[in-house]
């Protein structure tokens, strides 16, 4: 068994340097990493705890939008009144991960970089058009959230790179979002399918902008542009919702496993997208 070391750097540069070494793994909430360590699925030589870096934990408002420290726990997200008002869908996705105990630790960056296709924290972030600020040995870059997962358990991050924070754009009036997932149990379960919908409305209640993201129906989260386009210019009339569901289902390429068949997942993804759209629409002040 190789020797394990633990480091808790205070600067992002120091963390990037440490993570560039082979066998180094970043640690945020640890709710995935510690399970993998114990099962032997990963045996790193160095754990780099990112939570002591300034800005890695906490939420701040900037230029009308929000900056979320990548290691911020779900519990902290759920208690932030301003974030909850502007991005209720992002918060409800993050808050669906695990138990109260897991919420006390688990972070959005961990959920994203663990790269499970069924990650509940991710679809609403993608629908929100959120970006991540990535730090690495060559400095900083910013990338859309959906560019990070590269397949089950795989990310597009280069060696040494880690996510420092998420950025959510400023919110115009009459805008909101929602995330729904289906699980066989009501708690402590993994999504069969999930859908995040983010809407901006015109003053007359028609949809000005719509983004739809689906989870657990492909190797990575899907941003389904055709599904969003099906809502633009509508008041979520039944035909618009049917077009949304059809576009969402057309984008699905799920696997069949013990949680559900590919056919079931595809069907459910359409249902969830429709329901999430209605919730987001009502939250944005729209009346159907």
């Amino acid at each position, binding site marked *: 068994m190789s020797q394990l070391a*633990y480091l808790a750097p205070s600067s992002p540069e120091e963390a990037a340097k440490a993570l560039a070494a082979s066998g180094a793994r970043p640690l945020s909430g640890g*709710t995935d990493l510690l399970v993998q360590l114990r099962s032997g699925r990963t045996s790193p030589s160095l754990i780099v705890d990112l939570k002591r870096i300034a800005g890695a934990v906490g939420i701040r408002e900037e230029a009308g939008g929000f900056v979320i420290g990548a290691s911020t726990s779900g519990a902290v997200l759920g208690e932030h009144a301003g974030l909850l008002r502007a991005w209720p869908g992002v918060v409800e996705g993050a808050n669906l991960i695990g138990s109260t105990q897991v919420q006390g630790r688990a972070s959005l960056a961990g959920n994203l970089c663990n790269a499970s296709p069924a990650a509940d924290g991710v679809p609403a972030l993608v629908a929100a058009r959120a970006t991540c600020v990535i730090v690495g040995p060559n400095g900083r870059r910013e990338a859309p959230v959906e560019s990070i997962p590269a397949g089950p358990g795989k990310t597009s991050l280069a060696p040494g790179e880690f996510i420092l924070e998420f950025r959510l754009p400023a919110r115009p009036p009459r805008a909101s979002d929602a995330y729904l997932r289906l699980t066989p149990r009501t708690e402590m379960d993994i999504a069969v399918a999930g859908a995040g919908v983010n809407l901006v409305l015109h003053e007359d209640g028609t949809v000005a902008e719509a983004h739809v993201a689906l989870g657990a129906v492909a190797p990575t989260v899907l941003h389904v542009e055709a599904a969003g386009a099906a809502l633009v210019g509508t008041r979520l009339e039944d035909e618009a919702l049917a077009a949304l569901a059809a576009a969402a289902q057309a984008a699905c390429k799920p696997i069949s496993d013990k949680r559900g068949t590919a056919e079931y997942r595809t069907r459910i993804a359409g249902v969830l997208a429709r329901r999430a759209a209605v919730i987001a629409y009502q939250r944005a002040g729209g009346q159907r």
Partner: protein
Amino acid sequence: MSKIHVTTTVNGDPAEFLATPGMTLLDALRDELGLTGAKEGCGSGDCGACSVIVDGRLVCSCLMLAAEAEGQRVETIEGMAQNGQLHPLQQKFLEHAALQCGFCTPGLLMGAKALLDSNPDPTETEARYFLAGNLCRCTGYDKVIRAVLDAAAELRQERTPA
């Protein structure tokens, strides 16, 4: 293997210990500090038997490295009774027979304490969802929930000036 010197507060008292880099907080509490109340059930964050409160947050101590506790306040079941006097939650668990084998009880009590610290008047549904990460395989949950709600009522009464 080089050990890490960790300084924390446990149940209000300063505590120091040496941890190996991969040691969990649960193992440090049990093996280094002799606090064997928190139990290892699953070791993967599913059962809640290892629940403790760190800086005011309920966590699974099996999913946290001991080194991460540096500078943090840790509360365990050993700190729940004060001066030999059981906490109302502990008393109500006894009165409602909310335990049989007792393995899940320290975790359930810490979970229930975290619930009542943040929400003194939970509904039954809120209590059940909050404690969904604490599994019990012999008593079931009805007696536990009744004990928690009864303790909540008693604590609210204690807080109300006569």
